[in-house]
């Protein structure tokens, strides 16, 4: 395509990369920024990772927001997940107004409060990890991330015991609509928590061993964001089930 020479386009656009000195109606040689004429590619060692060994870097040769692709992907995923939990919440609210609804006394289950505290502590640990990774290097984040991992496991175990308490009280999945929703919502949330644990395990493995600097900090930040999201979701849904 580089054989086609540039010409003035009467109303077809404006060139920010155009060569200087072009005049209306003149034919201008192709500037050296097209495929063959560009400088040799970099080696991808710009801290942003390579691209299939082609060394384009991440942002230098591209349009886009100054945000890592992983963060955009995560935010989109959180948006999608928030529809899942909103759909659950709105189905819950609609179902409440229909027949056969008997509330379950969640107020009498201190374990759920303990679990909520544990989930909150997980988020705090991940904030600490993120701050440490920025100031003290990636390895400094390892301990708080491991701590968060342990807390996350404790949360899941706690939720499991909460299910056990309900079953001891005779409340099974199909006993009442409220119990159905409790199991359903905690299962959906728990599955997402499990995904978060996998992510944390991956971060622990990666911290200090990654070849591209800065990626560990980003990984801690993104997993942290995900866990904060799950905390907010839990507070919202637990609050909803508590007051109704």
């Amino acid at each position, binding site marked *: 395509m580089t054989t*086609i020479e*540039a*010409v*003035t*386009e*009467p*109303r*077809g*656009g*404006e*060139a*920010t*990369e*155009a060569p200087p000195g072009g005049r209306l109606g003149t034919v*201008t040689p*192709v*500037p050296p920024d*097209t*495929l063959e004429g*560009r400088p*040799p590619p970099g080696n991808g060692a710009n801290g942003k*990772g*390579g*691209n*299939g*060994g*082609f060394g*384009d870097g*991440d942002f230098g*040769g*591209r*349009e886009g927001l100054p945000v*890592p*692709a*992983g963060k*955009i*992907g*995560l935010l*989109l*995923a959180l*948006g*999608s*997940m928030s529809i*899942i939990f909103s*759909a*659950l919440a709105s*189905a819950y609210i*609609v*179902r409440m107004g229909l027949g*056969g*609804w008997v509330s379950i006394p969640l107020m009498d289950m201190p374990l759920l409060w303990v679990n909520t505290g544990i989930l909150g502590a997980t988020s705090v640990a991940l904030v600490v990890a993120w701050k440490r990774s920025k100031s003290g290097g990636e390895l400094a984040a390892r301990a708080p991330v491991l701590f968060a991992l342990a807390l996350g496991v404790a949360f899941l175990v706690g939720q499991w015991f909460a299910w056990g308490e309900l079953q001891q009280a005779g409340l099974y*999945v*199909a006993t009442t*609509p409220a119990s*159905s929703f409790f199991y*359903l919502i905690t299962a*959906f949330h728990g599955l997402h928590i499990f995904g978060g644990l996998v992510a944390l395990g991956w971060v622990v493995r990666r911290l200090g061993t990654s070849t*591209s600097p800065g*990626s560990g900090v*980003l990984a801690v930040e993104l997993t942290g964001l995900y866990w904060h999201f799950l905390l907010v979701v839990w507070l919202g849904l637990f609050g909803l089930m508590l007051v109704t």
Partner: protein
Amino acid sequence: MATSHDHDHHEPQSFWTKWVFSQDHKIIGIQYFMTAALIGVWGMVMSWMMRLQLAYPGAFDFITITNYYQFMTQHGMIMVVYLLTAILLGGFGNYLIPLMIGARDMAFPFLNMLSYWTYALSVVVLLSGFFVPGGPTGAGWTLYPPQSILSPGTPGADAGIVIMLVSLVIFIVAATMGGLNYVTTVLQMRAKGMTLMRMPLTIWGIFLASVIALFAFPALFVGGVMLALDKVVMTSFFMPALPGIPGDLPYDGGSPILFQHLFWYFGHPEVYIVILPVFGMISDIMSAHARKPIFGYDMMVYAMAFIGVIGFAVWAHHMFASGMNPFFGFFFATTTLIIALPSAIKIYNWTLTLWKGNIHLTTPMLFCIGFLSTFLIGGLTGLFLGNVVVDLPLHETYFVVGHFHMVMGVAAIMGIFAGLYHWWPLVTGKLMNPFLGKVHFWLTFIGTYLVFFPMHHLGILGLPRRYFNFASLGFLPDSVDTLNVIITIGALVAGFAQLLVFINMGWSLVAGKTAERNPWKAASLEWQTPDVPAKHGNWGPTLPIVHRWAFTYSPAGHDEDFIPQTVPLVPVGGDGNGRRTGGNGADSGSSGSHGGVS
């Protein structure tokens, strides 16, 4: 969460990593396309079964009332979800996004591979429904409870419905992985100079449809899981008390209407998930084959975005017949009719793109014009059905069947074929036979019109949809039977005509002429790779730089009648932000820039 680290994948060498578990978007696109096309053929064959029964009731022993409903349900579900959604986002999206925006691959190639194989699994699970006791579900593609899970209820209410729901859940996981990838890639991986408002409309369509998918599918996911629980562990999310039904069923107080809301909160945006990519593809292809810039590019983008947003606020128009507060009916009718505005903008813009264009009646262009026709017909009948008082008498009739098949079935298929014929040389480097392509178009176009146009008439006569047999309906004139036979013949003709495209593809691969680099002389970026078909990494040693939009056709004072996006401009004024300004060249008569257009 995957990061740019994932890009460090080098060209795969082994058969398995190159062709099967490939992370290359081009291979994944072809995998998605072929899987969806094959399952789509099965969906079409099932529609023949229905049509044979309706034209010649009782003449075929292998069509019973039970498998009639199973064919109907599986046809609908396969066509909407497993064919159209998958082929447009997974097939065209995968192949075209990186090439059209100037990227080497998707943002998350591993996730992309995972998306395809998860989709493939969902198809396998779906098909397994045909081999379980009782067969697949026959509840209609909407799967409404209670009858979809009640035994005895609609066919396949035991294992079949559970398999259907499991398959859907798996599909949604696949679609979500794909959607995250497509959106992130479009946002973050564009080549230098490829600003959002320079993107081809195909990319805009796929991008917006992917965003919609990310926010619509979760509702079906939740509804599907809840319906499965109602079936398997006897919860009462959707199931009301059922006095008089044999068996001691513990259901109490659930709401079938709640399921309908969750289903259609997904189901209506799903229509736009299917049609927005088609909008985009039609725009780009029509412009290239009319040698004229797309008319009203900005408005095309805004119209699609507007449709995408307001498409989330119309879902209950599918439920007018279920009954609702009249104020809700008014609200949803209003939002539904408002969608006519951006849709009309698009129809006008396509028409004005053709107006005084240098129209080449190539196979892709024929399919574009076919799309325009069927989408217009389907859109206009949508205006009827968007009104509550008109919908109520028509809702259970063939008028609805004619409407939705025209607007999102045939129109989408026209767009897919336009895309297939247009981009075939890009994917294979070969040309298809144009004569065979045109025969394929005319048989498809006439055949589908024969099928769906008379259905509007039948619907107004009161012919009820979903019926296995009309024999007991005394109020129908004899002409209904004649029309049903004509429709069935049309369906068989249009269906068998699809063999032509498969023959054409096979013939092209084996004996087709080698295509020149850019056989349609298209201005968009995907034709500018150093090698066509593109090799791994797409762009050779360096990424392209984009200098203009994708629609510079018939520019004034230029020998070629198009300028690729990679060719620089010289400054002549404008707003200085790298976008074209004012009009768009060829449609501005006063500037004398109609060169090549007659």
